């Protein structure tokens, strides 16, 4: 147990802090709140390029592929320092956090050379084609077909809930390459150029009113066989790798975002009046804020412990499901708590001059509802914990 940064980590952090101090754009907050999704994305691409050029992208990626070759702990420090400095997120988040690491683990040398640097620079944006209309949580039931025809796979099918699908140049696509196969067998993980003929992207409107996600339609899309990641028929294992990274990393930024909102909520509770007192003096409010803090701390510490474990064992394991349940359910409780504390004003949305923080709270309340569904429902995560961590028999 040693939570002091070692000299290398300290050096990394200090250099990063210094760089952030003079490079974080000061107009992100304005862009975040007011611009269109597309403009916002352009802004983030420019920012990612700047980070990349300064050598901060892909902190834990191997140096030979353009990464920094640093430790996973430094990657975590990077995420935390970025948040602390109020820096924008990276545009190519799926490429950086999920697909890049999967290519590092499963890709051929040629694939690593071809894709990794462009992920880091943000020149090629990635999305993920996993869920299907009839195979959401049941990934093994997916039906998007990829049939070998000469040296190409011909892809037909539909994917849903693709983050950044509207911006993506490439898609990490899980397909069924053996039509006679069932469940986990006969799946193949393909890297698909989104500009291929036959790829159609449609916005998918979610309950918040935004179209953060898309649906992807594939009609006779030809994908070169060299774009298979891992072995043909081994797509399940490769996909599990991606999902494990998803569970292990999403939580760090979710926890930090929640903590920033909590700090803001504390600030608001000091300003708000309730029954003639500051809300922050109300014992009920104090209990609720403290409970949110407790839950956020437990998320943070679970996450840190998991990172240490990954460093020891080399790869994220099924325990990541505990993190996933943790941040998603804690955030839902926190958003409900924030609504209760902020009272009637909190229900107001963007565009109302009375809305607190321009509707950020009503948006985050609604958006949080998706947390226990996206990236694997809580039910699926509990199955994983039960069966793959605790060793219970398969449930029905």
């Amino acid at each position, binding site marked *: 147990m040693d939570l002091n940064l070692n000299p290398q980590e300290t050096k990394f952090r200090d250099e990063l802090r210094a760089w952030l101090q003079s490079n974080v754009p000061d107009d992100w907050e304005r862009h975040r709140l007011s611009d269109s999704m597309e403009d916002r994305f352009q802004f983030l691409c420019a920012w990612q390029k700047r980070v990349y050029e300064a050598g901060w992208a892909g902190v834990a990626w191997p140096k030979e592929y353009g990464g920094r070759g640093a430790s996973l702990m430094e990657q975590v420090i990077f995420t935390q320092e970025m948040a602390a400095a109020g820096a924008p997120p990276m545009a190519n988040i799926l490429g950086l956090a999920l697909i890049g690491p999967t290519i590092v683990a499963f890709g051929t040398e040629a694939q690593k050379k071809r894709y990794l640097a462009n992920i880091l620079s943000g020149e090629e944006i990635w999305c993920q084609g996993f869920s299907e209309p009839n195979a959401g949580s049941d990934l093994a*039931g997916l039906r998007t077909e990829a049939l070998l025809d000469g040296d190409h796979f011909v892809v037909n099918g539909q994917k849903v*809930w693709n983050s950044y699908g509207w911006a993506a140049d490439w898609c990490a696509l899980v397909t069924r390459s053996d039509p006679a196969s069932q469940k986990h067998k006969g799946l193949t993980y393909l890297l698909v150029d989104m500009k291929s003929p036959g790829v159609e992207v449609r916005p998918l*409107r*979610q309950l918040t009113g935004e179209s953060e996600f898309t649906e992807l339609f594939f009609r006779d899309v030809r994908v070169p066989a060299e774009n298979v990641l891992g072995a043909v028929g081994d797509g399940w294992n490769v996909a599990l790798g991606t999902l494990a990274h998803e569970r292990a990393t999403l939580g760090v930024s979710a926890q930090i975002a929640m903590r920033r909102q909590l700090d803001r909520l504390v600030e608001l509770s000091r300003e708000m009046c309730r029954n003639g007192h500051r809300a922050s003096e109300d014992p009920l409010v104090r209990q609720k804020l403290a409970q949110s803090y407790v839950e956020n701390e437990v998320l943070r510490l679970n996450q840190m412990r998991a990172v240490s474990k990954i460093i020891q064992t080399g790869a994220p394991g099924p325990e990541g499901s505990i993190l996933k349940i943790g941040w998603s359910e804690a955030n839902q409780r926190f958003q409900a708590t924030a609504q209760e504390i902020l009272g009637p004003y909190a*229900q*107001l949305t963007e565009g109302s001059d009375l809305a607190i923080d321009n509707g950020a709270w009503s948006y985050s*309340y609604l958006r949080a*509802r998706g947390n226990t569904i996206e990236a694997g429902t809580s*039910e699926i995560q509990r199955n994983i914990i039960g069966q793959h961590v605790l060793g219970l028999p398969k449930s029905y």
Partner: protein
Amino acid sequence: MHFGLSETQQAIKNSARQFLAAECPMPQVRRLMETETAFDTALWSKFAEQGWTGIIFPEKYDGFGLGMVEMAAALEEMGRALVPGPFISTVLLAGTLLDHAGNEEQKRKYLSAICRGEARSTLALLEQSASWDLDAVQLEGKGLPKGGSLPDGGYQLNGEKLFVSDAGIADFLLVAARIEGELAVLIVPGNAPGLEKMATPGMDLTRRLYRVSFTNVVASPESLLGRGERARQALEAALEVSCLGLVAEMVGGLQSLVDLTVAYAKTRKQFGRPIGTFQAVQHQCADMLALLEGSRSALYYAAWTLSENDPAARTAISVAKAYASEAYRDAGNKSIQVQGGMGFTWENDAHLYYRRAKASEIAFGDATYHRERIAQSLIDRQPSKREASLAAD
């Protein structure tokens, strides 16, 4: 003793359901929620034809003369259909206030117009504190000097009211104010000079909230609906009736959530079988039903006590509102969770109820507010020995 709807009450509920299925199906709700005011005059006229706009008011003022249980039964169906628009603000809030505090002339003029479906109204109550406590009302109604250029003995209003539902389509507003320190209610035309209404969009897309500002708004002496104890009692009555009506809507919404979620769990397949076979799904559905039935029992009891002028009504309404506020939200969470990705889409109706649940939770005081009201009756008064132990009374 019978705890449940009578045959007549059930018939009112059934016919309301049929009527709304025909006149206000979900596509109509979605169409209206995209409009500026979420209000449809033609639909409102049909409500009036059904007698709903005067449901609880005396026939003398063109009302329908029904009781609280009947009102709750009808509102349950409105909540189930997610009917947009100003029913609670016009009929329950403004109507009850006029019925309780209005003089004969005011009732004939304003209450009758509401009952006949000719006028829409609302109550402007909350201010910056957003407190439902009547003592929080501060907006001043300044008495005008006799013989000035303004109406003799009238009032001038300056200030702001917040979270005023449906103000945008109100032909007249009932405004809670303070005259010489005393609580008062004034009737102000929707187009009064100096009155400004700004929409403050909220999560619930089917019902509109407004910020209403008053700049030297003049109210005539005849516009005074009541002041002092009379105003307070009328406001309290209007809030109780409206809160009851809102809970009825919430119960209806809960019913819809149960129905649509169970239907989905029966048909949607994952892992080769209907998801309703999974205990994690099935048990969430079971919990939703329990939340619904608990809310409904609390609703009917509250409606009955209010219809009997039972002093237990105040606490019974708070019990129903506290319970339903959390139940509706919780059921919304479960409904979307069970439906997974589909439940998170705009096209799925679950989120419309989820949004309504949030607005309903807040309106007329949230669960914490109502629990404190309950605490006052449970803790602060010394109950008699018999009363304390006779759980059934």
